[in-house]
């Protein structure tokens, strides 16, 4: 596969490599923790690392990201600490959400991660409001909301695209089309077969991009982010990607897809592709990539130790945080 030439800096390219690798190693370890019964099932993002990595490489630390039930990769790409993420997965007091939200609800406002959400399509209007806030307060912040092909059929997306368009909001709607809503293939559930095309009805640009190429994602989102930041309004990006695992832990994806298809996408693996690009263009060498691997693995291992050694929340935590105040 030939990647297009690009003007991405070496620093950014290596940052993207490290992020994608860290996501994969984190997810692999999180699956092990789930297999050990420390959390009961999770939605793995393995295979989809490139989409948030390419986009977040262009975001400022105070820009906003909102996610879905499958959001570990969004959080890591936006810079949420692995330690607090892993602790959250294990329901520990040191977790990003004090153990109250878990795998489907990781949020870290200080990093601009305004939350994963367990209800499909539910976060899209929320993100629209986040973008509205930035516009009214004139903060120059951009909001990125991730959702899947499944959510593209929810009214919430359509209502939000309309609102964002009439108000020229600084938001990027990013559909990670991993081809399946649970077991339902998008070719069945998405009329017209193109999610990007749905933008045209709302007079906003709709872009389809190879979601397994972090460089392509980078280029498309650069245009979208610049458009948002300059006050020209929203963009819809449909990134064609693939989840390697089932919908959740116990799901066997071969009940609805084929091994041939899985292999087709695994041969186009986003991490391997970037690695080939970096080596063939002599941007870096194998020795350096090995160092990045070791560093990523170490950070995941540290996070895992931290999470396992952390205490569970105290019983009274059950009652706190329901309200800011309630008297």
């Amino acid at each position, binding site marked *: 596969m030939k990647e297009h030439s690009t003007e991405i800096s070496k620093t950014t390219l290596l940052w993207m490599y490290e992020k994608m690798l860290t996501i994969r190693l984190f997810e692999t370890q999180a699956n092990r923790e789930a297999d050990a019964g420390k*959390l*009961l*099932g999770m939605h793995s993002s393995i295979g989809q690392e490139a989409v948030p990595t390419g986009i977040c490489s262009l975001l400022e630390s105070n820009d906003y990201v909102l996610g879905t039930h499958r959001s570990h990769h969004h959080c890591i790409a936006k810079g949420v600490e692995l330690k607090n993420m892993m602790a*959250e997965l294990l*329901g*520990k007091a040191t977790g990003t*959400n004090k*153990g*109250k*939200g*878990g*795998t*489907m*609800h990781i949020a870290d406002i200080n990093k601009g991660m305004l939350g994963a*959400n*367990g*209800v*499909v*399509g*539910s976060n899209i209007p929320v993100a629209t409001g986040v973008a509205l806030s930035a516009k009214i307060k004139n903060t120059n912040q951009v909001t990125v909301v991730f959702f899947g092909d*499944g*959510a593209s*059929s*929810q*009214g*919430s997306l359509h209502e939000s695209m309309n609102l964002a368009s009439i108000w020229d909001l600084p938001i990027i709607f990013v559909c990670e089309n991993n081809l399946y*809503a*649970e*077991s*339902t*293939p998008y*070719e*069945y*559930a*998405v009329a017209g077969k193109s999610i990007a095309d749905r933008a045209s009805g709302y007079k906003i640009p709709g872009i389809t991009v190879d979601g397994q190429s972090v460089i392509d994602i980078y280029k498309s989102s650069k245009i979208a982010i610049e458009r948002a930041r300059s006050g020209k309004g929203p963009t819809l990006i449909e990134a064609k990607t693939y989840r390697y695992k089932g919908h959740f832990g116990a799901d066997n994806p071969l*009940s*609805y*897809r084929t091994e041939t298809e899985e292999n087709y996408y695994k041969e186009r693996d986003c991490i391997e592709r970037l690695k080939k690009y970096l080596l063939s263009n002599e941007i870096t060498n194998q020795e350096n990539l090995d160092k990045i691997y070791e560093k990523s693995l170490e950070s995941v291992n540290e996070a895992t130790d931290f999470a396992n050694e952390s205490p*569970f*929340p105290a*019983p009274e*935590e*059950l*009652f706190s945080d*329901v309200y800011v105040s309630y008297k």
Partner: protein
Amino acid sequence: MRKISYIQAINESLRHEMKSNENVIIMGEDVAGGGSRDDKLDAWGGPMRLTKGLVKEFGRDRVKDTPISEAGFVGAGVGAAAAGLRPVVDLMYVSFYGVCADQITNNAAKIHYMFGGKVKVPLTIMTAMGVGGNKAAQHSETLYSIFTHFPGLKCIVPSNPYNAKGLMTAAIRDDDPVIIFNNRQLMGLKPTYDVPEDPYTLKIGKANIEKPGTDLTLIGIGYTTYLCLEAAKILESKGFSIEVIDLISLSPMDEETIIKSVKKTKKVIIVDEDYPRCSIAADISALISEQAFDYLDAPPKRINPPHTPVPYSKPLESLYAPNKETIIKNAKNLLE
């Protein structure tokens, strides 16, 4: 007689009703699975496997995978019912009612009344609920009380495979919109109930006295009936006589059975996994206070979770919902 699981019981009811009435269809996310892929028929059979195998028997026209569009397909269920079908719509988790509340509370519940009784909506909504899965606040709620608030909706909560089958069949045959709430813990229990192979219906609106007793009435709803029965075993071993009522139907509600029991035992605990405020437990407590006040030896006791969302962390989640121990503790307070 044979014993089957809760999931098999619901599945059998659906299969029989689809076989005997061509107007019965099923719609929902992954109720077949695999979309239109003919080589992947029955890939899922429903998120809780309640519809497993049905697409093979009845085809995709009657077992319809839907996009993730709850407002769309629940609303389509209302329309299809109004125009002559008997749709069963699967709303995966009850918390997702938020996406389609308009269709349930403004359309399904009100059409028959608003249209002067001239249009029926024989829609069945089945949905999963319950804590205990480490699934946090949006996938663990036990929400039924909120639906009992709306005139026009019938709400039923089975507690075992036997009544699950009979109630599911009754719901499909009922001419009003019925929501059947399936607790996920019950789906995971080993089959211990005898379930007839032939179809049968249970009356919607009738509670069942699971076991008679004279010292205390425990009122359970769905999974909490199971907990009440477990608690009653322990309490009986200590010499108390416990009556356990399985409420089964929340709307309509069998007030007579409740009042009669409380007048006899003079003490009552209502065990409810839904939120405590404006709950069915509060409603039952008010009913008892109004209609049996003079018979009571103690105020009606409610056991609910606290007024908080469902936490993720396992130790917090285990503190959250009513369990056997909290029932026994509260019962002893009343009995000793």
